[in-house]
């Protein structure tokens, strides 16, 4: 026996239309939120602290400059913010923000950019004081890279120079 009635068909069509509309609204809102607010919330993704390996030639080239300051900072203090940046065709880049010396205004912020080789071992990609060194400007700079904020590791990253 066919139990379908014109009323059921009408309700079914309205329901389907509602779900299509809801999906469109959610998709649009979702895209917007992802583009506009990637820094607003801290994702639960976590990278643990570990050593950072650096080619020993790096020390010779950058001795005494802001890269050296950044590596000194990250080896003594845990990063206070961390971000994941997916890289097409390569491993994710992790931005570890370290501040030294500390001040309330949020200046003297360094970005230590690494990739994870294995659990607990990271290779330095590059490190410097971006923008004007303020957290606000650096977060805006990171926003333009479509990064995702993650929980910051709670321990410093010892730096090991490889021969």
């Amino acid at each position, binding site marked *: 026996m066919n139990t379908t009635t014109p009323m059921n068909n009408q309700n079914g069509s309205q329901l389907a239309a509602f779900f299509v509309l809801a999906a469109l609204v959610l998709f649009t809102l979702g895209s917007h939120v992802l583009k506009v607010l990637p820094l607003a919330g801290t994702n639960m993704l976590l990278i643990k602290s570990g050593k950072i*390996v*650096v*080619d020993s*030639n*790096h020390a010779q*080239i*950058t001795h005494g*400059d*802001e*890269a050296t300051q950044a590596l000194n900072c990250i080896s003594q203090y845990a990063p206070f913010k961390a971000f994941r940046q997916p*890289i*097409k*065709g*390569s*491993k994710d*880049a992790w931005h570890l923000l370290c501040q030294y010396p500390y001040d309330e205004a949020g200046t003297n912020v360094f970005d230590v*950019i690494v*990739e994870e080789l294995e659990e607990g071992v990271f*290779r*330095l*990609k*590059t*490190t*410097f004081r*971006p*923008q004007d060194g303020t957290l606000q400007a650096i977060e805006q*700079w990171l926003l*333009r*890279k479509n990064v995702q904020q993650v929980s910051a590791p709670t321990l410093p990253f010892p730096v090991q120079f*490889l021969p």
Partner: protein
Amino acid sequence: MRTDGSGGLALSTTFSDTQLQQVIASIQEGKLPDQLLASVQAMDPTLFEGLPGDWPDFFKAIKFMNPDPEGRAGNIAYLQQELEILGALP
């Protein structure tokens, strides 16, 4: 921002607009030879400060890059993505 009078950027007398374009072109081709990397790493980073927008940080990323050859491919991929965001050097 200083210009060389022809509309291009003049960073210094030893590292010209043409050389900057050469670095960018090489990265876009997926290459960053030791010699080219060393030439950027030997520069005074204050020379990048006259560049517009986020370009100073692009060249600082190269200036302070870990030269480890094993990480070069990943670093080039990172820089290529940066170039996509930055567009063309004015």
